[in-house]
């Protein structure tokens, strides 16, 4: 990578650390609406795409706030009415409505705080099993399933880009592409080491085992983020390199592996149906990895300034899942915990993500200046 990274467009709140200025937002939305309706914009397809995406994002945020306001007004009127008539059932209804509104508002607040330059983007989730053979490969497979389920439950789509399967069960490693609004913003809080304690189904003497697997999350780099890679810094490998290739060989494998020589970062893709598709996807992954490495560097610099010991970087153990002898999933960063282990493994991660995100935002705010 030859140059520092920078966003190509910057609007005031892109960098505001999550402060959502209502009047500015409404003005900006009007402005974007006008631009989208300008027919000459569509002569420049990539700009048009960026503008219409920005418009859609902002419109969704504005609409979220307006709909909460509307529902709040309705719920309050309903509650007043119920109180006047001393109708206990209706009052309970109103309480439940207000409670769910509070949750919605909380989530909307967090979503509004996802204002990092890549938070709105799609992302890759890379899972690696730790030491310990089949047991940890199985654990990595369970994590992969957990994130797939979480993504699907939030209206996102998933695509398996690459996997190395374990010898008996599970996976040694896998990369999942998650597409959807704020995929990176939410999932970045999941980066780190995940620990599992259970009685292993692969142990004939039914002993308790502790296994580890790591998740690594990096954002898909879109047109708003400029990142330059010198092609001569990248080595391309295929699994067809040995032998004559061409008409001489008829094999299935069209995987492509790219290595960025200056950083040693390597990515592989075998998801596409053709070598061309694998190469394109591998380049996207490489851009994502290099960008994420840059984000880590920035974050590290910021943390050093704050003189605050970080426990949010990747490489740290972030969560423990105990299935036996008792049942408990506990986040070691935020101390959020639940005994509904099956629910969590089925993808119910929202409470963990929200707490971790709030904690990060807290850090950023305390630090005074956002990246």
């Amino acid at each position, binding site marked *: 990578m030859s140059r520092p990274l920078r966003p190509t467009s910057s609007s005031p709140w892109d960098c505001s650390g999550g402060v959502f200025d209502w009047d500015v937002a409404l003005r900006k939305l009007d402005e974007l609406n006008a631009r989208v309706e300008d027919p000459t914009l569509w002569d420049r397809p990539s700009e048009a795409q960026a503008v219409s995406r920005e418009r859609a994002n902002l419109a969704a945020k504005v609409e979220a706030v307006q709909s909460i306001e509307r529902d709040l007004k309705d719920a309050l009127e309903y509650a007043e009415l119920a109180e006047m008539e001393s109708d206990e059932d209706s009052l309970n209804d109103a309480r439940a409505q207000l409670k769910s509104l509070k949750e919605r508002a909380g989530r909307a607040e967090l979503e509004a705080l996802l204002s990092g330059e890549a938070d709105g983007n799609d992302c890759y989730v890379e899972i690696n099993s730790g030491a310990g053979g089949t047991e940890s490969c199985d654990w990595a497979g369970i994590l992969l399933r957990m994130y797939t389920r979480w993504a699907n439950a939030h209206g996102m789509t998933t695509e398996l880009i690459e996997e190395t399967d374990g010898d008996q069960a599970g996976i040694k490693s896998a990369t999942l592409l998650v597409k959807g609004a704020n995929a990176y913003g939410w999932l970045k809080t999941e980066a780190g080491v995940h620990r599992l304690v259970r009685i292993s189904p692969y142990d004939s003497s039914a002993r308790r085992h502790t296994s580890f697997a790591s998740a690594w999350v990096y954002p898909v780099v879109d047109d708003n983020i400029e990142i330059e890679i010198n092609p001569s810094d990248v080595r391309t490998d295929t699994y067809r390199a040995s032998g004559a290739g061409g008409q001489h060989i008829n094999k299935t494998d069209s995987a492509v592996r790219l290595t960025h020589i200056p950083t040693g970062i390597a990515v592989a893709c075998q998801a596409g149906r053709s070598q061309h*598709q694998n190469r394109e996807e591998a380049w996207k992954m490489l851009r994502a990895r290099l960008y994420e490495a840059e984000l880590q560097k920035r974050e590290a610099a910021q943390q050093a300034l704050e003189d605050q010991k970080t426990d949010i970087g990747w490489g740290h153990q972030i969560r423990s899942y105990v299935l036996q002898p008792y049942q408990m999933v506990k986040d070691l960063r935020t101390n959020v915990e639940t005994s509904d282990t099956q629910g969590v493994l089925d993808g119910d991660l929202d409470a963990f993500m929200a707490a971790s995100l709030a904690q990060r935002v807290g850090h950023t705010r305390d630090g005074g200046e956002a990246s």
Partner: protein
Amino acid sequence: MTLTLVKAWTAAKDRLKDAGIDQPSIDARLMLEVAAGVTRTEIVTDPYRELSAEQIATLNDYLERRARREPVSHIIGRKGFWKILLQVNKNVLTPRPETEVIVDEVLKAFPEHMAFSMLDLGVGSGTILLAVLAERPAAKGLGIDASSEALAVARENAANLDLNTRAALLHGDWTTGLGSDSFDLVVSNPPYIPTEVIDTLEPEVRIHEPRLALDGGPDGLAAYRELAPEILRVLKPGGLFAVEIGYDQSQAVEALFRAAGATEVRTVKDLSTHDRVVLGVKNPLESPA
């Protein structure tokens, strides 16, 4: 007996491994995807889904054929190439990733909305012709093949990709009957394996693929000797040609095209850094009076 996706995948892998198949994991997964009608993500994230008796029977049939070294492309009947998916069978050469180099070079040379005419000699399943036409909406093309069975496959692919109005497919012997100075672009992946080398190749190629698409005569260069002057004849002045070559044929093929009058002759490597495509231009000054 019940069989889950994860068990089916593992068992399929082991069976192919025992049969001496290279990269059994990918082949097993692809055949399981088709036999059980699942996506790759589903195999990993819904591993305990059970296969029906019918799906198990289909998978077993696939595995038996693969163990006898039938290519996966023939078993599942399709192969991805560039950005398109092609139907394939034993009557056509299965598209190879290295051939994508030709498409890459052609797309660099012809801008997206340019109208141009292309000729694909030995069109097979339609591989190069259809991959290019799919990305160049103003282009039209002619594909020629000596095998009517191959042409039937190419026609099906053209129809599936909605390209049949821009792709003409004709039975013929290379350029016989084509007028001079007719095309802006000529591409070909002619047979280039020396006859006696074919019998040393893996059974997937040696037994299961059509000799007509592989056999390049005693030194592998027979087709180029015939094609070089003919390609230069049917190209318009200033037109481009791109032909696939074997890994060790760059010098010989470049020489044949230079001798036929081509200029700007050069070789491009594939992603595995083998020499793979010879390109060149018909001299624009040799325009007929």
